[in-house]
């Protein structure tokens, strides 16, 4: 893994080859050790050390990007030359994108040496082995424990320098008995103090033990209580629409509806990289300082994440949320926090007469993006709540529901939440109670 000094050597090397063209160079270097668990053994234990360089050359209203892991002088020169050559084939964009020139220096330093020293492969395996001791013989554990460190540097020919380092631990665990009664829990940590594998083992086991003899319910509309992971699953799909590129392409359900009260007034979602509940990096993949966004304010959709190209097309301003995506314009909220409510999730459950409690959803996909219509399946803990108590496990069911409708029918948001890894970035989400949530299919083998 490359340190800061070596990363900026590569960046300077590439910038020196750009033949006077304005250019932006980014180097990302990461190392990840990951231990996978199946049948209460580690069956796959891997390490990867990867460094890649991407160069973007600007010319008038054009930009051209190439990436490579060939980091020799020759490899870098080839990448720069190809990026320059491609300019001749590219059309002009909406407007000239001047290089970012201010502020000159930005850094986000989140690397925890203590975390790094605590998560070598031997200690990682020992932690997993210790967790196995609490799993009864008739249950087995499955999942993964990963430690990842990433150093990212960026520089352009206008002289800016950006640098970030961070490291984190992700642990997810599924516990299952022999007949498929499963439970699941997970955690994300950036400091040793945040690491709590024991709680993850305990919660996953507890859920698996409760997930016995499931009853089968008929498809239809039910009140649901979504645990934080289930909310995070839905939120991840929702966030796609809070992007400038999705607005410009009219793929977003916010098309022509930004500023409207689309959701329950109980819902407020903020994207804020400085919030310790969902920490992030101070700048985006274009080197632009990242703004705080109020995406939803008491149910009213307010702001979306912009990159420079999409913003130029829409006459908007970048918010510093650009992503690197195969040379295409892309942006997304990366550090979302849902404002918690007033009661703990346990109290919401205790005060509920009848509802279905969802641990998480599996394999979600948009059926119709403009309608925010999603489908997915419950997984690893789906329970019936009656008169304040979890009374029965329920066989997994498929939902097909518009998120516009679901998030407009929030009855309660919990006061307690979890930091969870998202497809992009991370999020802090509390549980929620939602009425009239549509389940459209069963998973019984004999179902027709």
């Amino acid at each position, binding site marked *: 893994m490359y340190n800061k000094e070596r990363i900026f050597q590569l960046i300077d090397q590439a910038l020196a080859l750009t033949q006077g063209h304005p250019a932006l160079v980014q180097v990302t270097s990461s190392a990840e050790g990951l231990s996978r668990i199946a*049948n209460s053994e580690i069956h796959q234990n891997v390490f*990867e050390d990867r460094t890649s360089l991407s160069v973007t050359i600007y010319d008038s209203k054009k930009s051209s990007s190439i*990436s*490579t892991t060939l980091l020799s002088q020759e490899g870098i020169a080839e990448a720069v030359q190809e990026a320059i050559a491609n300019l001749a*084939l590219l059309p002009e964009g909406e407007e000239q994108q001047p290089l970012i020139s201010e502020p000159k220096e930005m850094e986000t330093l989140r690397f925890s040496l203590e975390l790094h020293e605590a998560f070598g492969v031997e200690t990682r395996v020992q932690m997993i082995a210790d967790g196995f001791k609490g799993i009864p013989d008739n249950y087995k554990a499955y999942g993964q424990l990963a430690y990842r460190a990433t150093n990212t540097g960026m520089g352009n020919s206008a002289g800016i320098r950006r640098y970030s380092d961070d490291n984190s631990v992700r642990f997810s665990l599924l516990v299952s008995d022999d007949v498929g009664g499963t439970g699941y829990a997970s955690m994300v940590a950036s400091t040793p103090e945040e690491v709590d594998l024991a709680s993850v083992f305990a919660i996953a086991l507890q859920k698996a033990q409760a997930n016995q003899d499931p009853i089968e319910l008929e498809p239809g509309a039910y009140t649901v209580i979504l645990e934080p992971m289930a909310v995070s699953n839905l939120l991840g799909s929702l966030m796609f629409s809070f992007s400038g590129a999705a607005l410009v392409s009219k793929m977003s359900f916010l098309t022509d509806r930004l500023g409207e009260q689309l959701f329950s007034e109980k819902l407020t979602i903020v994207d804020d990289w400085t919030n310790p509940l969902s920490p992030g990096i101070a700048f985006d993949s274009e080197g632009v300082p990242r703004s705080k966004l109020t995406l939803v304010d008491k149910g009213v959709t307010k702001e979306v994440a912009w990159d420079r190209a999409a913003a130029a097309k829409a006459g908007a301003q970048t918010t510093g949320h650009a992503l690197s995506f195969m040379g295409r314009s892309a942006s997304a909220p990366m550090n979302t926090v849902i404002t918690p409510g007033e009661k703990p999730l346990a109290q919401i459950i205790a005060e509920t007469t009848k509802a279905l409690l969802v641990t998480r959803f599996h394999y*979600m996909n*948009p059926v119709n993006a403009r309608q925010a219509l999603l489908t997915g399946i419950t997984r690893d803990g789906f329970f019936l709540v009656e008169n304040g108590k979890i009374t029965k496990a329920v066989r997994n069911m498929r939902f097909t529901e518009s998120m516009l409708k679901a998030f407009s029918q929030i009855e309660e948001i919990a006061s307690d939440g979890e930091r969870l890894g998202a497809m992009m970035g991370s999020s802090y989400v509390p549980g929620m109670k939602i009425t009239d949530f549509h389940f459209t299919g069963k998973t019984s083998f004999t179902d027709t």
Partner: protein
Amino acid sequence: MEPVVLKEKMQQVLSFIKAQEGVEYADVRSNYIITENCSTENMKVQSLSSAKNLGYGIRVYMQGSMGFAGSQDFENMEATAKIAMEIAQATRLTQKHPVKLAPKPVVVASYATPIEIDPFTVSKEEKLGLLFEAEALMREAAPQLFRTQGNLMFRHEVKTWADTDGGFITQDLYEIGGSISAIAIGKGEMQLRSYPNSAGGNFATAGWEFIKAMDLPGNAARVGREAMALVEAEECPSGIFDIVIAPSQLVLQIHESVGHPIELDRMLGYEAGMAGTSFLDSVEPGKFRYGSEHVTIVADATAPGGVGTFGYDDDGVAAQPIEVITKGIFHNFLSSRDTAAVIGKPSNGTCRADGWGRIPIVRMTNISLMPGDFTFDELIGGIEDGLYLDVNRSWSIDDRRLNFQFATEVAYEIKQGKLTGKIYKNPIYTGITPVFWGSCDGVGNPDFWRMMGVANCGKGEPGQVAHCGHGSAPARFRQVKVGVADV
């Protein structure tokens, strides 16, 4: 790096590993992958990008435990080997069942994708010109379209593999793919038509000739007109219908409801924490009825042009055809050396990694529904009131691969054995895997059979993306649940 130098470095590091105490087996694999993507949108180049990716991974088995390390540093391969060995040693702490590897022959061989025209020798101007031509034809046929798009993907991989048994295999692999799409907006709706499929289109192991044969311009006008027509179309009705499914949707149906459940690693629980398991965990191969007698499915890593076609997998096992389902009866899982050993069988050669930094795992090759003996008109002719579904739009299936739901771009109405010409928008169908395949009562004959591919199959932790082929002809299914509006 010169191949001779690479071979020498690989053999040196394997000798080093072999000399260490407790080492049972090791292999080293180098992948040099060059990708190029070009896309156009509304008659402008949207992206023109390429990437080069070179590195190696070392897998070491020591006293029944495996460790893997991937690196780009070819000057310090012994250091990478030491990391892999440290990981293998550490892993032993939790190892109750030592990993065994099914036997394989020692192979010294090479393989190259048969191609006519190297796509990397075709100019970027020609590639973009083809997309512009197709876009122009879509727009000419339907001037009100909101957006037209085209994309092409090219991949060249030089894979070099060696093991401590003395095996040495080089492979020169080409993949190619592309598509066009038209997007129309109206009545608060966005409707999409794609050719030859959505999600990047169709993919193959082939050269530029594959793109030429695809005939993007020749299909552009139809795609443009159908996108506009969908905006005006009625919502697809909900209910129970007899349906015929086109290969452009069967590709995902086969992938999700056959390809994944037959992966032996899923059956053994290796993917339980993430992608899930398989409903086949309690069935007996050779006895379980997966589908009707019309359903015969083969996994064939040697199928010409299939995007899951190669010479040898990343265990060094030769590509081969596998009988998966014959006349409805399930017979074999897809396996790797470590999973096959658990069930006491030889590996059938489906163990692949998506690059140098990942371990190989069981991946689909070309999993295909074999042709039947129906013409397309005969399939349609057997339906009184039904639908013909074309081109995948959305997919979802549960973690045991039983309950699936797919959306397609379009449904064509069938009445009294004929396509009426009426189309419906937003079709969805859903079912339970063995019930659905059991309802198949006809598959198109070889004249209608097409190999298609997907290039976005995610699996594993850290995540890996595989490219898999799926051949099929249009097939008919009885009494399938369509839509969810009535639930």
